[in-house]
């Protein structure tokens, strides 16, 4: 066991801690997060790799859809109003799928928050991921925390100048790549990249890249934790969804207090001493510039780097890990009650330890059962329900659709033989990327025949119409009913059938006749 005096102590101030935070209007005090290492840091590297990988690489995935549709796996073709996601193609009127996904994202966020707290903020929020990435660059060029502080306060020199230029240059490159990747979701990526670098792309592409470059650079490089603390509404909303059974990064002061820098000396003096050696490692690694030992606070994004930092120290001094840990408020309060003898005394670490110095059996540790409670079941249920509904809608959706607009001016036309004619604009939606041949026919309306402008002037009850791949086919249809059969029912149906398949769709239409003929 190492003596706790050998633990490195850091001179660090939690600049964003509510206790010492400067009033608004004062310039921001910079945060210089120290490099952390441990299981959560490892986990965050993996998450960063996955999320950035998805973001940068997705537009380059190919997906063969035949000769009549683009081969980009994920494409939001706004110009042609088609949205492609692997095997799924969505037309604008099917955009409710996206609304459904957003509902799922919302409920999913409730579910995640009620179980693992602000995991979104700490691990997957783009702000967190890109700040992490920018910090990697910063550390690579300027060094870790102490070197950066020193450089920051040093007068301008050639070394400082080139380090700063190099850092900002790489940040800008990342920012351009970030903005650049965004536009590839909206057009064929290889073609757009070629056009983009040769100056042939649309102005909107350059404007979009410029805006996203600016936001990435400013938010990720310059503003960092201020975005979370001052700009983002999410911490305010999310705090309302946490309850006493949600996991959150917690300083377990029931075993840490009273903290002491000279534990042996204090022990020798007969004072009670907690596990916290006040080394400030947790403060130094915090990207938000807070002190987790102040308790739960709005600024904390639960990135868990302080857990890594503290676990490292606990290992060194031979104490159990978890002085800072993911814990629920319920567990924390129960343990706190033991440590303070139900709130009647100040914290005494002796109360949480047994004779061998191990943590007492009465101490509550997190158990997975905590997550299984009515609230999480309701969220999970609602989430699955929406998901299943969307899936069912997706699997049963039409790829052939018919819409009919009836002429209202004039409502009907009297022909020379006394028969009545109505005009209709029929829209056939061929929603697959292949040309198809449809059979359009009328059902009902005795004696009625139809003709289609530009296709076939002969009057029949059924007509073949060729539709281009993935296109809307609009035809003008005239339906005529002979004088003798007028008034025998005014309702009828337009029926469209895929001649090569079984797909069909029906539109219930109306036939207008003069009042005297009804």
């Amino acid at each position, binding site marked *: 066991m190492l003596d706790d005096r050998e633990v490195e102590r850091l001179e660090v101030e939690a600049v964003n801690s509510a206790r010492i935070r400067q009033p608004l209007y004062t310039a921001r005090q910079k945060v210089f997060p120290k490099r952390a290492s441990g299981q959560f840091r490892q986990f965050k590297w993996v998450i960063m790799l996955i999320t950035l990988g998805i973001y940068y690489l997705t537009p380059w995935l190919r997906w063969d859809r035949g000769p009549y549709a683009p081969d980009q796996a994920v494409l939001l073709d706004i110009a042609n109003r088609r949205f492609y996601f692997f095997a799924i193609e969505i037309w604008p009127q099917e955009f409710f799928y996206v609304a459904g996904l957003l509902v799922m994202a919302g409920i999913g966020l409730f579910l995640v928050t009620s179980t693992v707290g602000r995991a979104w903020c700490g691990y997957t929020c783009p702000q967190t991921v890109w700040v992490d990435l920018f910090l990697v660059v910063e550390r690579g060029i300027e060094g870790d925390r102490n070197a950066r502080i020193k450089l920051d306060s040093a007068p301008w020199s050639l070394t400082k100048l080139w380090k700063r230029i190099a850092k900002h240059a790489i940040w800008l490159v990342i920012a351009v790549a970030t903005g650049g990747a965004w536009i590839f979701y909206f057009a064929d990526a290889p073609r757009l990249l070629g056009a983009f670098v040769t100056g042939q792309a649309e102005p909107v592409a350059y404007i979009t890249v410029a805006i996203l470059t600016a936001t990435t650079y400013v938010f990720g490089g310059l503003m960092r934790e201020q975005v979370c603390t001052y700009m983002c509404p999410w911490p305010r909303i999310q705090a309302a969804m946490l309850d006493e059974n949600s996991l959150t990064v917690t300083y377990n002061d029931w075993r840490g207090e009273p903290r002491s820098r000279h534990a042996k000396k204090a022990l020798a003096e007969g004072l009670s001493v907690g596990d916290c050696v006040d080394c400030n490692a947790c403060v130094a690694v915090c990207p938000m510039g807070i002190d987790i030992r102040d308790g739960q606070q709005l600024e904390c994004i639960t990135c868990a780097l302080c857990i890594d930092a503290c676990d490292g120290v606990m290992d060194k001094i031979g104490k159990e890990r978890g002085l800072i840990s993911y814990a629920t408020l319920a567990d924390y309060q129960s343990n706190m009650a033991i440590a303070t003898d139900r709130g009647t005394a100040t914290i005494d670490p002796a109360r949480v330890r047994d004779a061998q110095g191990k943590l007492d059996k009465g101490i509550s540790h997190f158990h997975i059962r905590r997550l299984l409670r009515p609230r999480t079941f309701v969220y999970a249920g609602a989430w699955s329900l929406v998901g299943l509904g969307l899936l069912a809608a997706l699997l049963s959706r039409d790829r052939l659709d018919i819409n009919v607009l009836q002429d209202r*001016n004039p409502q009907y036309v009297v*022909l*020379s033989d006394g028969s009545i*004619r109505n*005009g209709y604009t029929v829209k056939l939606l061929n929603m697959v990327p292949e040309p198809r041949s449809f059979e359009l026919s009328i059902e009902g309306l005795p004696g009625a025949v139809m003709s289609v402008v530009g296709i076939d002037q002969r009057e029949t009850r059924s007509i073949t119409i060729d539709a281009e791949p993935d296109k809307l086919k609009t035809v*003008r249809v005239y339906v005529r009913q002979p004088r003798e059969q007028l008034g025998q029912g005014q309702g009828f149906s337009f029926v469209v059938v895929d001649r090569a398949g079984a797909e069909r769709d029906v539109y219930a239409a109306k036939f207008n006749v003069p009042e005297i003929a009804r």
Partner: protein
Amino acid sequence: MGEKHIDELSGVETTGHEWDGITELNNPMPRWWLWTFYATVVWALAYTIAYPAWPMISSATTGVLGYSSRADVKNELAAAEAAKSDYIEAVKSNSVGDILADDKLRQLATAAGSAAFKVNCIQCHASGAQGSPGFPNLNDDEWLWGGSIDQIYKSIAHGVRFDGDENTHASEMPAFADIIEPKQVNEVAAYVASLSGTADTPELAAAGAKVFADNCAACHGDNAKGNKELGAPDLTDAIALYASGQAAIVSQVRHPKHGVMPAWGARLGDVNVKELAIFVHSLGGGE
């Protein structure tokens, strides 16, 4: 200005103004705000140099970029014309029959004709082309001067009984009040009405048949089916230009009304007339 007042709590200088013990802090503007403000000032000055801005005695500065919104509109109109030129060329060089046979060209011409119709034709033929008494319904299958695409094209180009065009449709029905007896007028009216089943006095129809054969068949035909060369309407069908019924026929036989349509060829140009012909042909009655 005397000594500085410093607020104790915040350590910020105050303006020295005090109301009921409340002093106003003299905080500086936020820097981002200030720099944005300076940037807008620079932008505004540069803008007035780059674009037309400063008023002079008789004109204004033109700006170093030489921008003019009038020239912009002119360019846009020229670009729109250029974009249409292929289509216009195709309409010019093809006959209406060929345009009708070309699916793409027909659709473009129909759309253009629809727009031209709304500007030039709906005053008489109504917005749905359904006409009104004296102005033919263009949706139905009864055509005074013929419903083929070429006939429609000719009617629009040269008009009907239009003085300013020598190729116009010119024939007129005489006023039979001066030619036949009133009794004969009633008889022939009963006969014509009976052809479409609307006669009030069918017993006169038999006598009317002879009057018809003597006076009317020359233009309207022996079977009263009309003659499109002369604009003589079919009298046997369910469509009447002015009104149906025996009384209306009496009036029309005695003192016929004659509609006039201007010749549009000289006024709108050939392209527009072709488009209108294609559109009218598409309304459902085209032959």
